[in-house]
Structure formats: C-alpha cells, structure tokens
C-alpha cells in the first residue's frame, strides 16, 4: 500500500499538476483577466521552495535521505538537485513569458497548462527508477509539447508538431522495444534488478555470450530512443526544423529543460542498471554517437545564419559533449571523473544556454529577426544585453573564466582518465570548430556597424534573469567549487 507519507515526497510534482488545473480553471472562470504565465510562475516557485527545503533537509520525510514509492520513484539528493535545476530554468522561462511570448499565445492558458503538465513529467523523469514508469514519464513530457508546438497559429506550426509527433512516437516505440527485451531477459523492470542479470540468467540460455549481446542490443535501443529527448545522434533530425519554426519560448523549453530531464534519466538508468562488464561495451557505442553528434552539430552550424537554427545545431553538439562524460561514467569507482563532471556540465550548460537564448531573444526583438546578419552593430546601441550575450557565447565555446570552460575541462579529464583519449581529442577539436561560429556572432554584434534606428523597448524581466545567468557563468567559472561540491554531495546518494 502507498501511505500518505510516501505521497508527500512527490509534493513538488503535485504542486505543479495542481497549478496546471488552476490555470485552466481560472481562465474558464475569470477569462483572460488573469495572466496565466504569472500563475504558472507562482506554482513553479512554490514547488521550487519545497524542493529546495527537501534538498537542504529542512523538511524531513521519515529519517532517510532518500526514500521511494514502491521502488518506482526515488527521491534522493540527485533527483532533488536536478529537480531544482529544472524548476529554476522553468521559472525563468515562465517569468519572461509575458515579455517573450507572441500575442497569439499570450492569451492562451492552454499553453501554460500544457507547459506545467510537461514540466511535471520532466520532474518525474529525474526520479524514476523503473523502466515502465520512466517510459510513462517520458510520454508525459512529450505529448504536451506536441500541443505547445501547434498552438502557435503560424505557417510551419502544424508541420513541426507533426514532425515532432512522429519522431517522438518512433523513439518511444524503440525505447519500449528495448525495455521489453530487457524485461524478457531479466524478468524485472526495476533499474536495480537488471544489474545482476548475469547471475539471474544462469541456466536460461545456452550461450552466455548471446545473452550479453542481447542485453547490449536492447541497451542500444533504449539509448537511441532517449537520443530523441537529448537531441543527439541518431534521432536529431527534428531539432533544427523544430527549433527554427516553433515559438521562441518552446524552443527555449526544448533546448534547456527538456534536455536536462532527458539526460538525468539516461544517467540514472545507465548508472543504476548496467554492470561494469556490459558498460565497457556500451560505452563505446555512446562514444560513437557522441562523436557523430559533435561533428554533425558543429560542422552544420558553421554555415547557418539563422540564430535559432544555429543554436539547434549547437545544442546537438553540446549533447555530444555531455555524452563524452556519459561514455566515461565510472561504474564502480566513486571518483570524481565521469559522473560528477557530467552532472556539472549538464547544469553549467543549462545556465549558459538559458542565458544565451534569452539574450538572443531579447536582442532579436530590436531588429525583429533571428538572422545574425541583422544583429549588426547592436553592440553599441544595446550594449548591456550584447555583453551578456557574448559572455554566454564565450561560455558555450569554453574559454576560461567561464563555467563552460570548467565543465569542458572536467568532461575531457574524465574521458582521458577513462582511456578515452581519442574522444577527449575529438571534443577539443570540436570546441575549435565551434569557435568559428560563436565568435562570428560576437564579431557581427560588436565589430560591424549599422545606422539603423532601433525601437525604444525594454525588457526588464529578461534583463534581470540574463544578468543573474551571466553572473553565475562568471562566478562558477572562476570558482567552480561552489557548484561542484553541491553536485558531489548530491551524487553520493546514488553512488
């Protein structure tokens, strides 16, 4: 039986779901007088506070650091940390929602309802420890997104949401295929129970090798399926089109929040369910998809002029960098390299990408375009926002004194210490390639001149949030200890 106490540990999720209903109802009763985005912010804030209190241990449920509901959902420090990150990023998105969202979407409470439901799915993803539940949570994040993509009454909307739907369904099916194979082999869907596969399988198969092969095959299926969420090879073809065509807010949500949730489940799944012998085989596959994602993303980004499309390719490349860390997760060794650096980079990327995206959106409003050639000379008229944009781009590129550099240094260290010298070299080569297009943007903004008059508009909320982001980028870049020690303490609970 599930006791009330156990239900309480998912209060943050319940808040989010509850508020999604409130948004829908308030729209029904009061009409559009209420700003849905602000109600959403309120709900996320409430959920965030509870999560932080849980993380700090101020609120204690029972006396155990991590507890779970029927072994399906485990609320440990790892999941709480990532929930905090996901909630913080979502809070930023909903806060700027009022300024960023287009008029057609502004009045739609459905948008924010779907947003909240999807967010609840993301939060679940960080803490599930059972495969079927993980799959359900994954669907919970994807299905509302299809709605969000098509709410915008623009030309491409339907096409994009259809594209997203089809690929989402395909990847889900592939994940399900992998899950059912693993279930067939191990007789369990719990992450922890797949681990001792080899022993459990004892007499069921004549050839042990073939079992091993089947396990690897099903893991490959599952990882490929997850690649849809994290925007890496092989399911990455949707990314550029969807990023370019969807409303900026949805792009932001896909690129920042959805990615972190996808990686969080992938890390937990690989870390808890796969034993070291299998992992040494599967990590080569991860290394390969990582290399392909990096090279594809960076090379394709070189020739893009549309910033949203460029960011889409850059996000594919960054998925590749994070996969370097995942390829070098150390299964039995609790040392720094590997998982800590991956989670560090994940959070660093979340902060950097959010700042970059929001600054880009803010700047694009002045020129009413996402074409980078139109950004000419913005550096002198919109100096403040341009500087913040440049800081975040430099962090994405990974130049020292920014958090992006520290993240990359950790990731590459992890790879080298795990005998992935070539993968680390690929990563560094890719940073080099990416220098070209990131610096090109900075060059256009600051070096080139333009006499065009710009509209007198200000975005106070965007300014505040991007400022916080830029400060975090620099502070964590100079003193990564602050974040790293939090990550380390959180990961101790699942190691």
């Amino acid at each position, binding site marked *: 039986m599930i006791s009330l106490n156990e239900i309480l540990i998912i209060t943050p999720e319940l808040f989010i779901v509850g508020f999604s209903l409130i948004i829908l109802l308030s729209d029904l009763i009061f009409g559009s007088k209420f700003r849905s985005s602000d109600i959403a912010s309120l709900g996320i804030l409430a959920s965030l506070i509870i999560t932080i209190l849980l993380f700090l241990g101020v609120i204690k449920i029972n006396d155990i650091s991590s507890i779970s509901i029927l072994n399906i959902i485990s609320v440990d420090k790892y999941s709480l940390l990532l929930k905090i990150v996901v909630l913080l990023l979502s809070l930023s998105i909903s806060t700027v929602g009022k300024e960023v969202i287009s008029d057609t979407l502004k009045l739609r409470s459905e948008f924010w309802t779907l947003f909240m439901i999807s967010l609840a799915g993301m939060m679940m993803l960080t803490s599930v420890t059972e495969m079927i539940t993980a799959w359900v949570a994954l669907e919970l994040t994807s299905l509302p997104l299809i709605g969000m993509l098509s709410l915008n009454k623009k030309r491409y909307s339907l096409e994009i949401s259809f594209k997203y739907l089809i690929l989402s369904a395909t990847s889900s099916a592939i994940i399900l295929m992998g899950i059912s194979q693993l279930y067939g082999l191990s007789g369990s869907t719990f992450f922890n129970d797949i681990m001792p596969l080899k022993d459990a399988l004892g007499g069921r198969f004549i050839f042990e090798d073939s079992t091993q092969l089947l396990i690897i095959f099903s893991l490959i299926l599952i990882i490929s399926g997850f690649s849809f969420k994290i925007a890496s090879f092989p399911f990455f073809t949707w990314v550029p089109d969807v990023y370019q065509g969807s409303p900026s807010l949805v792009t932001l949500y896909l690129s920042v929040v959805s990615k972190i949730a996808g990686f969080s489940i992938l890390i937990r799944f690989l870390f808890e369910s796969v034993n070291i012998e299998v992992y040494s085989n599967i990590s080569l596959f991860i290394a390969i998809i990582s290399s392909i994602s990096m090279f594809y993303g960076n090379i394709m980004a070189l020739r893009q002029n549309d910033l949203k499309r460029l960011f889409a390719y850059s996000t594919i490349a960054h998925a590749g960098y994070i996969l370097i860390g995942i390829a070098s997760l150390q299964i039995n060794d609790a040392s720094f390299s590997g998982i800590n650096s991956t989670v560090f980079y994940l959070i660093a990327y979340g902060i950097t990408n959010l700042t970059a995206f929001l600054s880009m959106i803010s700047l694009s409003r002045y020129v009413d375009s996402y074409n980078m050639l139109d950004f000419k000379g913005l550096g002198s008229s919109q100096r403040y926002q341009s500087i913040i944009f440049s800081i975040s781009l430099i962090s994405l590129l990974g*130049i020292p004194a920014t958090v992006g550099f520290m993240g990359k240094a950790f990731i590459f260290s992890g790879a080298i210490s795990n005998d992935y*010298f070539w993968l680390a070299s690929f990563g560094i080569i890719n940073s*080099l390639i990416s220098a*070209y297009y990131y*610096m090109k943007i900075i*060059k256009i903004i*600051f070096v080139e001149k333009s006499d065009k008059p710009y509209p007198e508009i200000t975005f106070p909320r965007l300014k505040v949030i991007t400022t916080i982001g830029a400060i975090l980028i620099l502070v964590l870049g100079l003193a990564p*200890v602050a974040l790293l020690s939090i990550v380390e303490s959180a990961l101790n609970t699942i190691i």
Partner: protein
Amino acid sequence: MPGGILSFLIFFPIFAGIFIGIGSASNAIKKRIKFFALLFTLIEMLLSILLYFNYDKENGGFQFIDYFDAWIPFESFRAQYLVGIDGLSTPLVLLTGILGFCAVIASLKISFREREYFMWLLILQGVVTGVFSSLDMLLLFVFWEAELIPMYFLISIWGSGKAQYSAMKFLIFTLTSGAFFLIGILSIYFATGTFVMYDIAELNLIGVSGSAFNIIIPSLLIFLIFFIGFAIKLPLFPLHSWLPDAHTDAPTAVSIMLAGVLLKMGGYGLLRINVDLFNSIDPTILFDLSPYIALIGAISVIYGAVLTIRQTDLKRLIAFSSVSHMGYIILGLSSYNAYSNLGSSEGLGGTALQLFTHGTITGLAFYLVGLTYERTHTRHIPHLGGLAIKMPLIATFFVIAGFASLGLPGLSGFVAELMIFVGTFKLGGLWAFSTILSVFGVVLAAGYTLWMIQRSFLGSGVSNDSPVAKEYDNLNDMDKIELIGAIILTITIVAVGVYPSIVTDLFNIGIGEVFSR
C-alpha cells in the same frame, strides 16, 4: 617585498581595465582615459622593475609565491591558484611591464571607442603576466586562453586592412595551440596526479619503467603534443602563417604586445614544459629529438629571412623577421643536453635571452613603424623614402632597432644569438650544420634590415608618384612623450648588449635549476 605583490601585478591591470571600461561612464574619468591608462601601466612597469631587482639571486628558486589551494579542491581533481617566479620568468614579467607601458604610449592617438580599447589592452597585459607567473598548469592554461578574447577584439575592431579575417585566423590558430596544450596538461595530470609543475619534478619519474606515464599515453606523444602547441604560438615554420596577417592588420600597440610578449609565451612554454618539466619526466626525449629540432629551427630561420627580404610592407617585413628570429629559439633549445648541466647552459641561456631581447627589439621596431605610419599613412616601402630628413629621431631609433635586430655587437641581439650559436655548434653533427645554416640567417637579416632602412628612411625624399609626396613637407618628428617609450626600450637594448649579465644572471639561475630539480 610584501606578500601578494605578484598577484597584484597580475590582477591590477585586469581590474584597472575593467575600471576604465565600466567606470568611465562618468564624465570625469571619460576625459582622462588615456591619462589613467598611462598611470596604471606606469605603476605596473615600476612594480615589475622593483620585483625584478628584488629577486633574491642567492637563494634562487621560485619567489614571491602566492598560494590559494581552494580553487578546485577535490581529491581526484585538484588545481590551485599558485603563482611564483623564478630565474626564467622574472625577466619576462619585467618585459611585459615595460612593453605594456610602451604599448599605451603608442596608442595615445587612438580616438575610436577608446575606453574599450584601453580596457582590452590593460586586461591583456594582466593576463600575459599571469601566464608567465602561473605554476599550476591549469591556471597557466586559464591565462593562456583568456588572452584570446582581448586580442580578438583589439585586432578586429581597431585593426586595419583585412582585420576581421586576421583576427579570426589568429583566434583559430591560438585556440588550436591551446587545444594541444590542454590535452597535454590533462595527460600529465592523469599520469602524475598533480598540476603543479615543480611537484612533478619531485616524483622522480625518470627511469621508472612502467610508470603511470607510459601506460596511458607514451611520454613521447605528450612531448610532441606540447611541442606542436607551443610551436604554433611561437610560431615555427610551417605553422607560422597566422603571424604576418595578425601583425600587419593589428593596431601598433597590439603588434608591440603580440611580438613582444605573446610570442614569448610559446618560447616560455617550450622552456618551462618541454625542457624543464620533461627534464624530470624523461630527459631522453628532447635529447633524442634535438638534432631534428635544430634542423627545423635552422629552416625556420632561413625561410623566415628569405621571405622577409621580399616584403614591401614595413609591418609585414618585421613580422616575417620575427618568424626568422623565433627560429633561433628553437635552435637554442636543441642544445639541451640531458646528461650535463654545463653542456646546455649557453644554448638554453641564449634561448631565454633571445626571448627577452627579441621582445624589446621588435617591440621598438613596431613602435617606430607605428609612429611612422601615423604620419605617412602608408607602410608601403616603395612609397617611402628620405624620412630621416623630416623625422631624424624616429630614423635614429629605427636604425638602432635594425642594428640590434641584425645582431650588431654591443646591442642585445648579438649576445643572444652568439650564445645560441656557441651552444649548438660545439655539439657537432647535425647541430653544427644547422648552426652554420642559421648563421647565414644573420647575413640575410643584415640584408633585409639595411635595405629596408635605406629604402624608407634614407635618400633625398619620396618619389613624386607616392601618396606621401603631398604631405612630405609637413611630416614631423616624434613628440616628447613618444620619445620616452623609445628611450625606455633603447636603454634596455643597449644595457643588455653592453652588460648582458644584468639579465643572463637570472636566466642562468633559472636554467641551472632545471637540471638540479
């Protein structure tokens, strides 16, 4: 000297730059940006001179150490803020201080977006000082890469010609160099477990068969990774193609910093890591490779010199002569003798001295080219001529810089080159062959330098079809403040030429310690 002085030397220009960049929103500061920039760099220069003469030669070793170990304090990934200078780096910190001041003097005529300009210039100076004083390799790398951003903006915004192309080229080459560097330091870290350079010496890795080193990556590979990384930065033939472009299109002050200090980062890296560090990891690597290194050095000398003769742009000419002069550094490096301290002291000492002297000589040359260009608005040599009549002071200093560059005895270039030749020639074989080749580089240097001076400064005046002809009568000489910069650099050149031990004492201490570590 009080503690923290070295950290002050690093961070003072950075914060001063930020102060100029942000603080100058107020009008009072805005009007005096140049004054402030001069003041800040003057303080920096005086401090670096003070530091230089306070270095305790009796005790040697790393001095003025500042230490803060909670930078990344994790057991499996530990890096600390650790700065300190020894005999090798102290003169280079001094060089940075001097050239930083001269660079500001050279840019007093800047009027376009000046507060950003001086912000980047000051930040650049602080960051380069950081490179020369970091003892933790990760910290060194942080400074190494952080130098890129100021340079990129300085070249692309205030540069001339194909500035944006050159800036991007510079950026990509330097990032490549940094990438090699990063792979190298991470490999060393995971083999030894420390980023601190002198800690690695204490691990006694030499001769330990099957040490962690050769298991992960062969030490020869790490050596080559570092070597290529630094050779790009130096630059060494055939990795030099970014240098002429960056120099030609950069503003004067940036050329001074680029030739004077930034190239020295490559040389310093070679001495600090490929010689110093690898002397305590596996001394045979450099020793076995050294004949080939000598040959590459000689090729670089000759190739650079031959290309220099053909140049018609003053700046491009000096840039190519830098490629040639950096070849001597590689040649000197090859005199490293794994088994004898005495055997390699002249060659390596000459290499270190060449870093210093080339910094001052080329710094002065770019400084003067900058002053000339401000007046004539062209650097095209066929368009110039007879400038000595109108600008006698500039011409005089130019002749001094030229003579020093071609290695005239009594000026500093001679000492360094002689030390290098002596060090390598006595090893015989391929070394001696390379030395003989390189000596012809000096002949070529005399050729291009004197020919350049003759074509641009001597003669009776410019030809009539030159664009300078109209303004020729109105050309004026350098003013007093510009004279100060030229005098400071000339004093350094002459002082080192006449009494070399003023610098070589320190370098010899540094080189000696490499072998006693």
